[in-house]
C-alpha cells in the first residue's frame, strides 16, 4: 500500500515525526477517513493531497487531537499529542476565524505564546517583542498594529504562519497555507518552510495545487478517504497513484501532472 516508501532510504536514526496507525474518523454517520496508516518522516517538507472531501483537513485535525477517531491512534515522536503539544505548531485554514475580531496582527501572533505562558499569566513586553520578531520573519513586521481585517489574504496567511512560528515547534501542521494567497506570499512562505526544514523541523501541509507538489515538497501523502499512497515525491507522485486518488474525474489534472513529471518544472516562473 505504501508505494515506494523504502526506495529512498532515510537515516535510520530519525524516527517518524508523526505515526498514524489504522485511523478511522467519522462525522456522525459520515465517514471521513478509513483505516489510514501513514508515517510522516522527520525533517522533511511533506504534502497531503487528494480531492475535495478526501479527508485531508480531517487527517490534520486528527493529528492535533481536534477530532476523536473511531479507531486507531496518532503519535508524535513516539507519544500521544497530549504529551507533545509544545512540539507542534498549527496553521489553520484562513477561513476558520472571524477576521473582523477586534484584534491586531501582533496580538494574533502573540497567541502563539499562550501555550508557553500557561494559565492566568499575561503576555509581557518581552513576549510582544518575540511575536514581533516572528512577524518580521514573514516580512510584515510593519503591519503589526493593523486590525486583521485590514490585511490582504496573503498578509492574513502570513499572520497565521507567524503565530505558528511563535509556538517554536518541531513539527508544523498547516491546512492549505497557499489557499488564496498572492504569488509573493507563496514564494515567501515556501522560502520560510525551506528554512524551517533546514533547521531540522518537519512541515506537513495540506496542499491543493498538484502542479507545485514536485517543486515544493519532498514527501507526499495521497488521500481519498483511504490512504492511496505515501512516500517520497519522486516515487510516489506518479500518474498511477494520482489517478487512484482522484479517480477518473480529473483526468486533465492527472495528465497535467504527467506532463510536469516528464519535464521537471524547476525553472518555471
Amino acid at each position, binding site marked *: 500500500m505504501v508505494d515506494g516508501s523504502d526506495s529512498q532510504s532515510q537515516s535510520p536514526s530519525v524516527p517518524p515525526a508523526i505515526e498514524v496507525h489504522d485511523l478511522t474518523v467519522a462525522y456522525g454517520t459520515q465517514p471521513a477517513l478509513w483505516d489510514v496508516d501513514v508515517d510522516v518522516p522527520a525533517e522533511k517538507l511533506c504534502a497531503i493531497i487528494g480531492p475535495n472531501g478526501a479527508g485531508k483537513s480531517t487527517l490534520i*485535525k486528527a493529528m*492535533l*487531537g*481536534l477530532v476523536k477517531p473511531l479507531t486507531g491512534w496518532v503519535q508524535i515522536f513516539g507519544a500521544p499529542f*497530549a504529551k507533545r*503539544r509544545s512540539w*507542534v505548531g*498549527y496553521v*489553520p485554514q484562513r477561513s*476558520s*476565524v*472571524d477576521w473582523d*475580531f*477586534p*484584534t*491586531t496582527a501582533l*496580538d*494574533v501572533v502573540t*497567541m502563539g505564546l*499562550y*501555550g508557553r*505562558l500557561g*494559565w*492566568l*499569566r*499575561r*503576555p509581557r513586553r518581552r513576549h510582544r517583542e518575540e511575536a514581533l520578531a516572528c512577524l518580521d520573519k514573514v516580512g510584515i513586521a510593519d503591519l503589526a498594529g493593523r*486590525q486583521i481585517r485590514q490585511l490582504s489574504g496573503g498578509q492574513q496567511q502570513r499572520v497565521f504562519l507567524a*503565530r505558528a512560528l511563535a509556538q517554536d515547534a518541531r513539527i508544523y501542521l498547516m491546512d492549505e497555507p497557499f489557499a488564496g494567497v498572492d504569488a509573493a506570499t507563496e514564494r515567501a512562505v515556501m522560502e520560510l518552510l525551506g528554512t524551517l526544514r533546514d533547521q531540522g523541523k518537519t512541515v506537513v501541509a495540506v496542499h491543493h495545487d498538484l502542479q507545485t507538489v514536485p517543486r515544493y515538497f519532498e514527501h507526499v501523502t495521497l488521500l481519498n478517504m483511504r490512504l492511496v499512497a505515501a512516500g517520497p515525491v519522486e516515487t510516489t507522485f506518479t500518474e498511477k497513484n494520482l489517478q487512484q486518488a482522484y479517480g477518473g474525474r480529473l483526468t486533465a489534472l492527472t495528465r497535467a501532472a504527467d506532463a510536469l513529471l516528464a519535464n521537471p518544472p524547476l525553472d518555471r516562473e
Partner: protein
Amino acid sequence: MEWLASPTFRTVLLGATLLGAVSGVIGCFALLRRQSLLGDALAHAALPGVCVAFIVTGAKHPLSLLVGAGAAGLCGALFVMLVVRGSRIKEDSALGIVLSVFFGLGVVLLTRIQKMPAGNQSGLDQFLFGQAATLLEGDVIVFSVVGVAVLVVIALLYKELKLLCFDRAFGAILGFPMRGLEVLLTVLLVVVVVIGLSTVGVVLMVASLITPAAAARQWTDRLSRMLLLSALFGAISAAVGVVASASVSKLPTGPSIVIVSSALLLVSVLAAPRRGVLWAALRARRTAHRVRAENLLKDVYRWCERRGDFETFVPLTIVMGMRGEPGRRLYRTRDRLVRRGLLLVDGDQLKLTRQGRREAARMVRRHRLWEVYLVRRLELPADHVHRDAEAMEHALTDELVEELGALLGHPEVDPHGQPIPPREPLTEPTK
C-alpha cells in the same frame, strides 16, 4: 428632588451602574461569539424560576428569587445545548424555542401568583420591565458582590477567553480546556442576567448586554478597549436610566436604560471613525471629489493635447460638454483645483498650471497604460477598454503603474494611437 440625595437612592444608583458595567463587559463576549440571542433566551428562561421560588417560599426573599432565576436560566442553557446536540434543530431555533416556552410558562405562573392572596402585593411583575426603585439595600449589596466577582474572573481569564472567542481550535491545541471555558462563560452570563433582571427586566435584558457592546465595537479595534468602553456605555446607560425612571412616576427602569443605550449605539453607528456611517459617507464624498478633479484636469489636458498647445485658455463650455457634468458641480471642482494651484482661470476659460499639467499627465499615463495592458494581456478589442480604464485610473497607485509600464515594455502609444506621457514629470524646455 431630595430623593436624589437619599442614601437609599444612591445605593440603588450605584448598584444599577455597576450592573450596567458588568453586563456591558459580558455582553462583549456574547457579541463576539455571535451568541447575542443566548442572553435573551436566558433572561426569558429565568422568569419561571423567579415565580417558582416565590410560590415555594411564599415570600420575596431576594436570595431565593436569585437562586430560582439562576437555576431556571441554567436549565434553559442546558436545554439549548441538548436540543442542538441531540437533534437537527439549529441553535437559533433552539434559542427561540427555549425563550418562548420558558417565558410562556413564566407568564402563566405570574398570572397564578397575582390571584394568590399574597400575590397582588408581590410586585413580581417588576421582573418584566425592571424597577430599580423597589430594590432594597440588601439586594444591591448582593448584586455588587456578585458583579465584582464576575469582573474579577473575566480579568483573570482575559487571555483564555479571548482565545475562546477568536480561535477555539487553536486554544484547544495549546491545551486550554475550551469546553470548560465555554461553560464558564455561559454560567457568568446566567449570573449577570439573573442579577440584572430586577433593574432591567426579562424583556429588555438582552439590550443591556448587547447594545453597549455593539456601540463599543464601533470605536475600537482592540478587545481590551472594547471591554472598557462597553462597561462605560453600560454604566452610563444604567445610571441615566435609573435617574430618569426615578424622576418620572411609573416609568419602568428597563426601558429608560435601553433608550439611553440605544441612543449611544445610534451615535456610535453614525459617527464612529472608520466603521461609522457618516465616516463612510464622508470618505465616499472625498473620493468623488478627487475623481471629479482628476477627470477635469485630464479633460483639459486632452483638449490641449489634441490642439498641440498647452498655453491657450480652454473655454469651460467645451470641458462641460465632454462629460455632461452638471455646471454647478463643475464650477465647484474648478474652484477646488484653482485653490490647489493646478488651474488658472480667466473668466469662463481654463488653463493648466505647470503643476496641473504634470498631475494631468500622470492620470493620462495611468489611463493609457491600463488600456495597453487590457488590449495586450487580456486581448480585449481596443474599443472596449476606455470605460474600464476610466475607472481604473483613479484606483491605480503610482507604484503599480510603473510595474505595469515595465511589464509592458514601456509602450509609448496607447491602443488608440495616442501618446502615453513619460514617467518623469514634464519639464519645460529652458528657453
